């Protein structure tokens, strides 16, 4: 029977040597007898999400997953094709048993792959792989659907933006569609500035066509015929795969001058973002695409009304767009079956930090933190205790152990002072000092904000000074009052979302770990042993 060998060639596995592994496997296949060689295909895929155990090699249809594969293992892998799997390359589950299938691996067992539906199974450089799995069918369907109905379907799905604030996607499209002001634009936000996050990178690398299809459907719905794909410079593989996908789709007549010969056109260009974290903010990104300095706009105007070059513009996140073909293909109602009352579908998280199994995780909205961190992630390594998890990137909140059973969805996270953000999830163990974590985040934001408005620039400067003092053992209680005033001013008087959310890590650490501030201030002690006391910096 025909076998397909899938070699993971995402950024993580490439760093681990997967390109050499793929080359060695090809060579070993060519050495097989003619019949067997023809029967054995090899494919380079995008990221399987478990990079730390890479390079990953999968054998289909036998459903065997090998981890940490080296060039020296390739002869045995090919030699064992159709026979017994190579035992030592299989994953060892929590009970110590070697498991063959990906779905027996506890990291994958309870995940629900909607957005990541194709990644790891298709060759992102081959448009036919995508089409073979039903790709671009939703776009065809959208072509024969009135824009109004496309938008209704997206509204029905309950999809909310995956890039930050969770704004309802359908509503955003409807607003932009409502303006009779052409040309209109569609922008894909692939800036992914959260340190440690790589959800969008993996989607762009591993399944670029799903994103392009989502963008094309959006363009049809709002009446745009031009768009921009903003991808950060540090993502060379994502840039390359997206550019190839775009060229292939245009050559196939799927995008470009006439989408599937409909006479409707869509021209997309790739923009490299070399900018700061703040360039991920929508109006800063728009200014940056227009050629200006990436700094948020002052005006109270929504891009849906006056965006790029003051024309109606829809900006969505990479993951948001990737959900669209599913919604149009299978219907909004089906999509809405997954998730919670107000947060539908799944969310991809980059689970990192002090955790046994780290990687890219996709779960239905409403899954608890405990399920993600302990069932999928396998908990904290080395018998240490869990202390906190930071969700939502550098301006997300830090939630304590007592909140491990809350549901991960937009509104619940917000109600506890954290936020979904774009899906960064950093797990911390008992050796972490929460004051120091707050300081670290404040320092990042102080350097990465644009520096335009006073509460953000000066507020973060002062917060950093105060937190440095507290960590150095010279803080006092008056400082804490100032911290509170600054946090309030940040939230309410900052110009953009960066400043408005910048207080989250400080406020949550004060709220859930007040004792640590007290210890640092009154006893000049850092229980976690992180802060060098007495050496005020």
């Amino acid at each position, binding site marked *: 029977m025909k076998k397909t060998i899938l070699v993971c060639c995402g950024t993580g596995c490439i760093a681990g040597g997967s390109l050499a592994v793929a080359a060695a496997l090809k060579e070993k296949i060519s050495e097989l007898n003619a019949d067997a060689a023809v029967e054995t295909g090899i494919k380079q895929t995008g990221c399987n999400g478990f990079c730390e155990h890479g390079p990953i090699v999968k054998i289909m249809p036998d459903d065997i997953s090998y981890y940490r594969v080296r060039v020296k293992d390739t002869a045995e892998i090919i030699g064992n094709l159709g026979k017994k799997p190579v035992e030592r390359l299989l994953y060892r589950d929590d009970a110590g048993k070697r498991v063959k299938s990906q779905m027996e691996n506890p990291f994958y067992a309870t995940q629900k792959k909607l957005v990541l539906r194709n990644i790891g199974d298709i060759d992102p450089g081959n448009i036919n792989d995508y089409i073979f799995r039903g790709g671009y069918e939703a776009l065809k369907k959208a072509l024969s659907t009135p824009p109004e109905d496309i938008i209704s379907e997206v509204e029905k799905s309950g999809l909310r933006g995956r890039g930050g604030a969770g704004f309802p996607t359908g509503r955003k499209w409807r607003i932009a569609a409502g303006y009779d002001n052409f040309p209109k634009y569609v922008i894909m936000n692939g800036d992914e500035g959260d340190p440690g996050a790589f959800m969008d990178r993996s989607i762009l690398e591993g399944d670029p066509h799903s994103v392009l299809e989502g963008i094309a459907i959006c363009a049809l719905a709002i009446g745009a015929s031009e768009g921009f794909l903003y991808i950060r410079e540090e993502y060379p593989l994502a840039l390359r795969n997206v550019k190839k996908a775009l060229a292939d789709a245009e050559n196939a007549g799927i995008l470009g001058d006439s989408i599937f010969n409909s006479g409707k056109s869509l021209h997309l260009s790739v923009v490299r973002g070399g900018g700061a974290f703040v360039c991920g903010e929508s109006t800063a990104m728009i200014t940056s695409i227009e050629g200006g300095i990436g700094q948020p706009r002052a005006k109270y105007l929504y891009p849906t009304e006056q965006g790029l070059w003051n024309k109606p513009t829809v900006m969505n996140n990479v993951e948001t767009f990737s959900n669209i073909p599913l919604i149009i293909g299978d219907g909004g109602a089906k999509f809405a079956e997954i998730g919670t009352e107000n947060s539908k579908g799944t969310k991809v998280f980059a689970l990192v930090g002090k955790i046994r199994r780290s990687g890219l995780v996709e779960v239905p909205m409403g899954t608890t933190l405990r399920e993600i961190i302990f069932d999928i992630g396998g908990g904290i390594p080395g018998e240490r205790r869990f202390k906190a998890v930071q969700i939502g990137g550098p301006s997300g909140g830090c939630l304590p152990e007592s909140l491990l059973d809350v549901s991960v969805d937009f509104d619940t996270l917000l109600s506890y002072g954290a936020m979904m953000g774009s899906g960064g999830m950093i797990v911390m163990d008992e050796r972490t000092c929460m004051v120091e974590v707050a300081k670290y985040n404040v320092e990042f934001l102080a350097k990465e904000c644009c520096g335009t408005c006073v509460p953000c620039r000066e*507020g973060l*400067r002062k917060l950093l000074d105060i937190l440095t003092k507290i960590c150095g053992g010279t803080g006092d209680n008056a400082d804490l009052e100032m911290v509170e005033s600054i946090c309030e001013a940040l939230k309410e008087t900052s110009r953009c979302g960066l400043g408005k959310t910048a207080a989250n890590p400080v406020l949550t650490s004060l709220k859930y770990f007040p004792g640590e501030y007290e210890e640092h201030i009154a006893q000049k002690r850092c229980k976690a042993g992180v802060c060098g006391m007495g050496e005020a910096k």
Partner: protein
Amino acid sequence: MNIQIDGKTCIAEPGESILETARRNNIDIPSLCHHEALPGLACCRLCVVEIEDATGNRLVVASCVYPVAESVTVYTNTEKIKKHRRTNLTLLAGHVPEVKGVLLAYCREYGVIRDDSHMKAVVKEKCILCGLCVTACEALGNSAIQMAMRGIDRVVAPPFNEPSLNCIGCASCARVCPTDAIDCESVSGNRKIWGKTFSLVKCAACGEPYATVDELDWLKGKLLDTELNLAYCPNCRRRVSVNTGK
């Protein structure tokens, strides 16, 4: 259009900002970065006010850029607003130890006791990074200075921090600066600004130095028939043109 500000019915022009409407109606809102000729910087956040929509929802906005709308009621001086202004003034005053002028007046008004004990005193720092100078220079078409760096490292500087080719020494930046932060010296017929020295031209009538050579060259390039007038300073020019009818 009518709009309620602090309980007073004010007449507003469509398209103007809450700040403009309020000031025309004699309601004072503090501001550092707002300049009638160069609106839209919206960075000092002293002009914040609370607005209330028809359903009673309240929101804090920057009045210098928030457009007036009949459906909102504005409160410019609530406890919350006063507290935010005090915080933002404290932060600014902490960064610019030599608080002077309008900033100092606001600090007094809002009871801000300058406390820079936490701040690594930024010696002689006066710039509050409002951006007015950059915008003024840009509006004249020269763009000789810019906001360099981001975040807390932000500074106003000529490109690459070297004397700018575009600078004509007109000192528009220094004039518009609310805190006198730009060093601009005029001694013995020269003006020094942004690391460049310019020769000053004396008025043909009163003899006062009134512009730099580069500035006049630049003006000549912009205007058509002004050879004569440019020999005088603006004051004398007015007089001369009245007398000669030119």
